[in-house]
């Protein structure tokens, strides 16, 4: 009995830790969808670029030598955020803005397919271009923290082991999430973005440049997901096609949380993390991802509006 309970609690904790990272990952996508209503197929691949950016900052740019193996990775990961935010900004400027925003708000429905297909093209280029540039060799960001754990307990013969790297990842993730929430709720830029998301026409009447708000949302969303990617990279090795593995996780989380709600996306990601880890109790590991797909399809069919979003009417 205690063994089952211990296994259960271990899976629960693992789910919470990984869920915190998934949550941040989903928030990035949720930000883009919430503000701009753009489906970004390439989001997983931006994350992949974030992983590589963190990797190269760590190894090639000397962060490793400057900050060492314990703090270094996290510094590199936090650097990857702004780098990818800039990249996202440029991609939006050059490509995405042509099929989204105020220009296409008058085109009913047609804008959507163009976005899907454009971002699909970007995804293909990033994945395969990544293969060319980075090679197919698995990379990872080594930190000694990932091979040691804190022990919680023992309480009543039960001990939970919290992997140090994952523990710190979760902390970084939650901190980033908090800062992001503050930015969105308190700052002028954040309020402009929320206004543009709620009602782009009224926002324009108020003097807000909606296209600019979109660009920032896209950049911010990309940067945030890049950080989440970097955090994942301390635990799992990655290669240029890693984005594909997480695209469904991201979408499942965003849809579960309610498309349009940023905090909802976080909880959605958290839930997916829990589902994934806890499904190992009953399913073989290889079917973990299939479990996520099933959850995703169930949500789309039975509750497409999600669970966690604030039900506020949209004008």
């Amino acid at each position: 009995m205690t063994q089952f309970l211990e296994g259960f609690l271990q899976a629960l904790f693992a789910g919470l830790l990984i869920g915190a990272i998934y949550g941040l990952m989903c928030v990035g996508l949720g930000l883009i969808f919430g503000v701009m209503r753009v489906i970004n197929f390439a989001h997983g691949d931006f994350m992949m670029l974030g992983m590589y950016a963190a990797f190269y900052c760590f190894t090639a740019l000397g962060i490793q030598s400057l900050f060492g193996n314990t703090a270094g990775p996290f510094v590199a990961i936090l650097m990857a955020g702004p780098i990818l935010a800039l990249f996202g900004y440029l991609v939006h400027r050059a490509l995405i803005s042509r099929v989204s925003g105020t220009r296409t708000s008058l085109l009913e429905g047609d804008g959507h397919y163009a976005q899907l297909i454009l971002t699909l093209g970007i995804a293909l280029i990033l994945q395969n271009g990544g293969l060319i540039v980075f090679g197919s060799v698995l990379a990872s960001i080594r930190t000694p923290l990932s091979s040691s754990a804190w022990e919680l307990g023992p309480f009543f013969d039960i001990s939970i082991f919290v992997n140090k790297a994952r523990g710190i990842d979760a902390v970084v993730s939650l901190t980033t999430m908090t800062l992001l929430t503050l930015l969105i709720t308190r700052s002028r830029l954040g309020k402009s973005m929320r206004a543009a998301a709620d009602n782009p026409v009224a926002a324009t009447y108020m003097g807000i440049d909606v296209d600019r708000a979109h660009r920032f949302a896209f950049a911010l969303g990309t940067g945030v997901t890049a950080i989440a990617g970097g955090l994942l990279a301390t635990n799992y090795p990655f290669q240029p096609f890693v984005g594909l593995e997480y695209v469904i996780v991201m979408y499942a989380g965003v849809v579960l949380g309610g498309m349009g709600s940023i905090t909802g996306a976080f909880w959605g990601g958290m839930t997916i993390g829990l589902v994934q880890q806890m499904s190992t109790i009953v399913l073989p590991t290889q079917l973990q991802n299939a479990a996520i797909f099933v959850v995703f399809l169930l949500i789309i069919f039975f509750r497409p509006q999600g669970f966690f979003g604030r039900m506020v009417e949209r004008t």
Partner: protein
Amino acid sequence: MMPSFRSLAPVIAFAVVYAAVSLLVTNSYYQLVMTLVLVWAVFGLSWNLLSGYTGLISFGHAAFFGIGAYTTALGQIYFDLSPWLLIPIAAMLGGLAGLLVGFPTFRLQGHYFALAMLAYPLAILYVFEWLGFQEVTLPIKRDNPLAYMQFSDGRAYTLLALAMLIGTILLSQWIERSRFGMALLAIKQNEAAAEAAGINTLVWKLRAITLSGAIAGAIGAFYAIVLLVVTPQSVFGMLVSAQALTVAMFGGVGTVWGPVIGSVILIPLAETLNAEAGTRFPGIQGVIFGLAIICVILVAPEGLFWKVRDLVRKRRAIASPEPLSAPQISDRPREPATVLSALPNAPAKVGIPQDIALEVRGLSRSFGGLRAVQDVSFRLRRNSILGIIGPNGAGKTTLFNLMNGFLRPDAGEVLIDGHNTVGRKPHELCEAGIGRTFQIMRPFQRMSISDNVVVGAYVHARTATEAGKLASEAIARVGLSAIAHRMAGELTTKELRLMELARALAGQPRILLLDETLAGLGHGEADEVVAVIQQLAKQDVTIAIIEHTMQAMVRLVDSFLVLDHGAVLVEGEPETITRDTRVIEAYLGKKWAAHAQH
């Protein structure tokens, strides 16, 4: 339906040329490329069959392709069946998969549909990996190669693939010309309008996805036979779905030649680059396809075929301009009169038994807390014209949607010939004789008026000839016969409205619901359309029309039904209604109505 020589000729020409070229190729790698071009062309055509014609973009066609591939691979390994048998089986399984996928997924809207379609092949991919089918190799049959479709000469595969391509092209062309194609295009253009025109949209979409899945399954099976190795990633992966999509969109969406053109250009490009630079730049294929998609969507969203055709048409139009349409337009108002004289004598209005064509009783509908339609009752007398008016938000379009089957009322009945039609779907009501036009028109820009109108004729016509006849009659009734061949993209607003009307008429309705047919027309133009509508009422059609432009309405209608906040305010003839205090109040405000009495 016999295909014309014009449409067969390019197919035969292409086949002959391609076969000749392939026979000349001796290098086994290039023979493979020649085969693959055709494989992707067929796959692209299968994608086109669903997504190109209906506009429902599928990102998951790899699901059907992969099912076909594995059917063949596993069928040969475990059951020792020949591919000659397995390909048809794969087609059946692919079609079945299409049906199973379509049924629940078509209920989803917009991006949810796209995401679900994306999820299917990726989910199946994980399952196959878990099942242990990381890499499945087809056994080589040395003793009886032909029975197992294993040719030593790569060109044999090319010829076989060519046969499959020709078959698929002919099938697609047949569909384009038939009511199947008409239905799909109508769905792409405006699904609600298609339903109202009598098309059972769900059934046709399911047919399309089943056929699409079958073809994808068959070609997936062939792909496995050609490559002899199947991995989950190579047949279920995202690049597979993306290639089908890219090839079709690049070449031209919604046309038979699009996927062929796209495949002929992109596949050799990608394969050659892969062969030459593949070791130094692995993944160059994906980059090419990515670039192709991006270029297409930004520069020529409908594909190469349409862009080129439009350019050619423009050049021809500049070279030999058509005679000005203006003189013809002024002739048009006389046309309905001449047509009228050709019809059997329609009885004059006075003396018609006042029977009721349609009755609405106590119809109500709320959305959340908002009561859009409140206990509305009225009668449509046969051959009369009723104008439904009221200030903004009065519930007029909601009323039409309730009468037409798009919305279910919370209470009340809609009676046609005494039968309550509540609960029946729009296409059923169209069969029962209710026609409808919509406020926002989205005609097929590249098709002629005749082709746009014939869609509406299929609800009663059993053959294409009959449909064509009904369409011509409808076009004549609205006075557009002189320009019936002209493309919709070149028409004026008035001509477009008349075309919408003709499409509704082609279904031989007894009752017509017109939603803001006069919107966007200048004074003179509105008068012309009003004349057409008046003629229709004389020809045994009962009409209810929603409009804002009162100037035209007061001369057109026999009576008005005034709605305010979803409830009937008053009913009566134009002279009385326009001076009724309650109506003035609803439109201009209480205060104005009060002092205007003086």
